[in-house]
């Protein structure tokens, strides 16, 4: 994000991301953090228009044009807040701008209800292969060394509670 004559120019992060447009939503996968995001139309429109040259006002105008309805600047700030928390912008927007934090609730309380859907960014952490599979039986874990490939150090050893503990002087692992 840059500062230009007092205006804030948020820029979308493009590196290490995989995107996939589906009807009404945009899927974004962060290859660095292994997190996946689902942006609704409003959040996606704001994110796509963050090119480091548009101000918040410009982004509101672009969204207005997209959705053919007036858009309050606070909706853009809410989108930027969520995009920034998801690490989808190149810099910390809200703090740098010194703008008060905006929440969906605060917008609704202030009576800012627009025809535009409020921006929503949903996130999940992508699982490791082991986490997405059925855990290895606890007996397998008994007596193993944590540095064994795929062993307790690699985390697939788990039982119902998902815990794996290093035991005693031998460094053997034991599932609890």
């Amino acid at each position: 994000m840059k500062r230009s004559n007092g205006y804030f120019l948020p820029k979308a992060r493009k590196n290490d991301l995989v995107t996939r447009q589906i009807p009404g939503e945009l899927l974004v996968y962060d290859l660095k953090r292994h997190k996946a995001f689902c942006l609704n139309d409003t959040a996606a429109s704001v994110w796509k228009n963050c090119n480091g040259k548009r101000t918040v006002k410009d982004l509101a105008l672009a969204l207005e044009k997209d959705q053919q309805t007036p858009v309050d600047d606070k909706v853009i700030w809410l989108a930027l807040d969520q995009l920034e928390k998801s690490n989808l912008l190149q810099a910390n927007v809200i703090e740098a701008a010194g703008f008060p934090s905006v929440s969906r609730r605060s917008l609704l309380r202030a009576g800012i209800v627009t025809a535009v859907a409020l921006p929503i960014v949903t996130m999940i952490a992508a699982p490791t292969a082991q986490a997405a599979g059925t855990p290895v039986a606890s007996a397998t874990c008994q007596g193993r060394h944590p540095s064994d490939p795929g062993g307790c150090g690699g985390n697939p050893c788990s039982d119902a509670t998902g815990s794996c503990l290093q035991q005693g002087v031998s460094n053997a692992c034991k599932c609890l």
Partner: protein
Amino acid sequence: MQKIDRLGWADGIAFRSYGLRIGVRVTDRAVMDSVIDRLPPGWKPAASPIVDHLYSIIVGGQADGSRIQRFSLLYYDAGRMGRTRDFQMLLKTFESYLQLLVADNARRRVFVHAGVVGWKNQAIVIPGMSFSGKTTLVSKLVQAGAQYYSDEYAVLDEQGRVHPFARPLGVRRPNEFETSRIDVTSLGGVSGSRPLPVRLVVATKYRAGAKWRPRQLTQGRAVLELLANTVSARSQTRLALSTLPRAVQNAEVLKGVRGEADEVIETILKKVV
């Protein structure tokens, strides 16, 4: 690896599974049938002995004239994956790691940790982590007449259709970690064989006493729900992100906690028309 190679290997097999070339060798020929029984559904013998992934199983037990019970060991390439005196447990570990290897590296297939049944030529997919009650729900659906596809992985092709991964159901008794294998025919069910389009995704978890009041998810949220259970989400992200939206494009996706499986079976089946 050389140390392992020097051991006396009595038998072995090279096979192909979902585009991977895998080998297994054992120190005792007598266990080979049990090993073959644990290979992933749909495996085919490979013509060439050259493999990309190699498992080595050292069979323990009591040697003649000795009271010492030796460990059975499982290696994947040079890394030790299992060490136990219970050979059946070692086989379970082998099966578990082998399935994970295939699921993570399969070419042109996306493996989602999920139960799957076929109903009226469409698939019902139940994604979820272990202990979420997938197998219970799948077995009840099979008993209600649905075709069995899998209780472990939904195998999706590039068009988003589900293929069968019909290994015996791994049923857990209450408060037990280990699973017992049950053949689907013992439940009065049959396994499906044709790939099916996904009609319904049920993201649910068992909670005692809960009422089934699911909410519908958007297509994007549905993709995230499946991605959270996709084995190769990190290793083959692009394939997953192109396949999963196709899988849910014509599907209804429901999410919510459920109580007993019997209470939701009818509702779930009625959703597929």
